[in-house]
């Protein structure tokens, strides 16, 4: 019985496409909303009048809007985001160079958040209404409330400046990754812990768990082997949704720790009004988020034990 799953996957893929198209359209329109001559904006302040004129013709900025968008979309699909208005290098190259740093940070933080959040959530549920539960919930409240850049600065002051355990910023060694990854993971860890706890507490009240207990299985085994698999379902969804917050947090974390990723490039591009770079990074970030949500939805089907596909 593979057909229904196949159909679902295809449908979900088709559903993501208009969103991605919409993202490119939104970015296209936004940059054209900026008052002033778009050719001048895209060429940058350093460009000569000749260059601006050449760009205007090249990008078809003298043509009607729909045609302009079609051209824009065609180049984006071909991986051509134009030249940086500041450095004159292709935007796609700049993105490529920075992409790895951002992915390393985001993936490490997600892994940390899942590991720490799940453990904390399970502990809180297992010791419901005890000091353990209370401590986990307080920590989670802190995690969702703390400004990520301030947490980064505080961790730097403590672990880099005072204790000299890790470097304060920059990149290159695994030790450089520790503080940024922990900082960025804080919010997601808190959300995962809350969700795991809530979901597990609810599952522990269900009939099949009562049956397992009645069979004489120990409480630890009941939680780990029976309840957790069911409780994980909403957690998977929340990890996917968290990825968006994580990308936003990455912009702040990268800036705090001088981490050479896309987020820091985006901030410097905004400061320098380098619109081709801004366009490129925003599209890449949104595309990453859409793809992660797509994968999450598919994973969701995979972990739900109530559904059996072939």
């Amino acid at each position, binding site marked *: 019985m593979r057909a*229904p799953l196949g*159909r*679902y996957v295809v449908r*979900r893929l088709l559903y993501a496409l*208009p*969103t*991605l198209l*919409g*993202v490119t359209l*939104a970015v296209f329109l*936004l940059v054209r909303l*900026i008052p002033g001559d778009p050719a001048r904006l895209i060429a940058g302040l350093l460009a000569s009048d000749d260059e601006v004129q050449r760009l205007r013709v090249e990008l078809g900025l003298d043509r009607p809007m729909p045609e302009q968008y079609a051209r824009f979309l065609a180049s984006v699909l071909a991986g051509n985001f134009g030249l940086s208005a500041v450095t004159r290098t292709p935007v796609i190259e700049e993105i490529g160079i920075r992409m790895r740093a951002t992915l390393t940070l985001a993936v490490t933080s997600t892994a940390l958040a899942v590991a720490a959040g799940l453990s904390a959530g399970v502990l809180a549920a297992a010791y*419901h*209404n005890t000091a353990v539960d*209370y401590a986990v919930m307080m920590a*989670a*409240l*802190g995690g969702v*409330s703390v*400004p*990520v*850049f*301030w947490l980064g*600065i*505080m961790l*730097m*002051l403590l672990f880099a*400046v005072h204790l000299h355990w890790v470097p304060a910023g920059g990149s290159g060694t695994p030790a450089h990754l520790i503080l940024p990854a922990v900082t960025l993971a804080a919010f997601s860890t808190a959300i995962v812990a*809350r*969700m795991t706890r*809530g*979901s597990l*507490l*609810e599952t522990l009240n269900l009939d099949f768990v009562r049956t397992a207990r009645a069979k004489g299985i120990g409480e630890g085994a009941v939680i780990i082997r029976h309840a957790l698999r069911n409780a994980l379902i*909403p957690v998977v*969804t929340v990890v996917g*949704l968290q990825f*968006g*917050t*994580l*990308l*936003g947090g990455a*912009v*702040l974390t990268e*800036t705090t720790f001088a981490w050479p990723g896309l987020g820091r490039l*985006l*901030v410097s591009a*905004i*400061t320098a009004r380098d619109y081709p770079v*801004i366009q490129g990074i*925003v599209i890449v*970030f*949104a595309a990453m*988020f859409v793809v992660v949500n797509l994968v999450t*939805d598919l994973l*969701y*089907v995979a972990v*739900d034990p109530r*559904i059996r*596909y072939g």
Partner: protein
Amino acid sequence: MSPSTRASDTDKGVRSTIPSAGRSAWDRLRRRRTAAAGLVVLGMLLASSLAAPLLMGDPDAVDFAAVLQSPSPAHPLGTDQLGRDLLTRVIYGGRISFLIGALAVLLALAAGIPVGVISGYAGGTVDLLVQRGVDLLLAFPGFLLALTLIAVLGVGVTNVVVSVAVAAIPVYVRLVRGATLVIREQTYIEAARALGAGDRAIILRHVLPNCLTPLIVQSTLQLGAAILTAAGLGFLGLGVRPPTPEWGTMLGEGQTYLLSYWFIATFPGLAIFLVVMAFNLVGDGLRDALDPRAGARG
């Protein structure tokens, strides 16, 4: 259960389904106490912000004879790189943060409520178009959306408010649309219609009052989120312009000194942390108090 029904569940519905924690009376009591603590903290911070001009001196008063001084009786939180008193600036910073948070949430409500009601009430093509628009906004991670709008609009208080508000609109549209869809199908709405009530009357007298509870809860949480986003923009140098004492801007402005002078790094951030935590506590408490059946995020 057939796979196709489950599959359609995953599209939208399940995302908003948050499990409610199994809770005891003790649990509820504890929450109410923490919510009260949040309320007290908020009240104190709000009062000191409002009374700032009466209590404190000029937040922009530069004193080159007292640059980067550690906390002392004269300057309880120390001074910054321009010799400005940090306590004065942190307290004045509350005015900016509360103002930005409140305006952004009001703006998001003003846009989100009508769009949500129309989307849910009209249904059909209108609903479809609105929902695709919401999907599009949600395709951008929230902070990134605000950042992108700042890139287009430029920095400054007004643009920060607009950017933060736009990022919050989809939440309200979804919430109000969902409530409208449920209420529209109720028998008493049918009865009201049979008695000759027009759409306008039904929306104003039945639909909106029913959305009030979730809107209040959401807005309380959103106030904290808005302040956090605005502070993030300020930290990046893309929010409120210096020398305005916005908390995030203060951290961004003192970036060079953050690791050498702990008090410059600590206090403005601590203020953001406290305010956001207080809004979260009050929001969670309100949710429990107003709607015990609603899901608990923690």
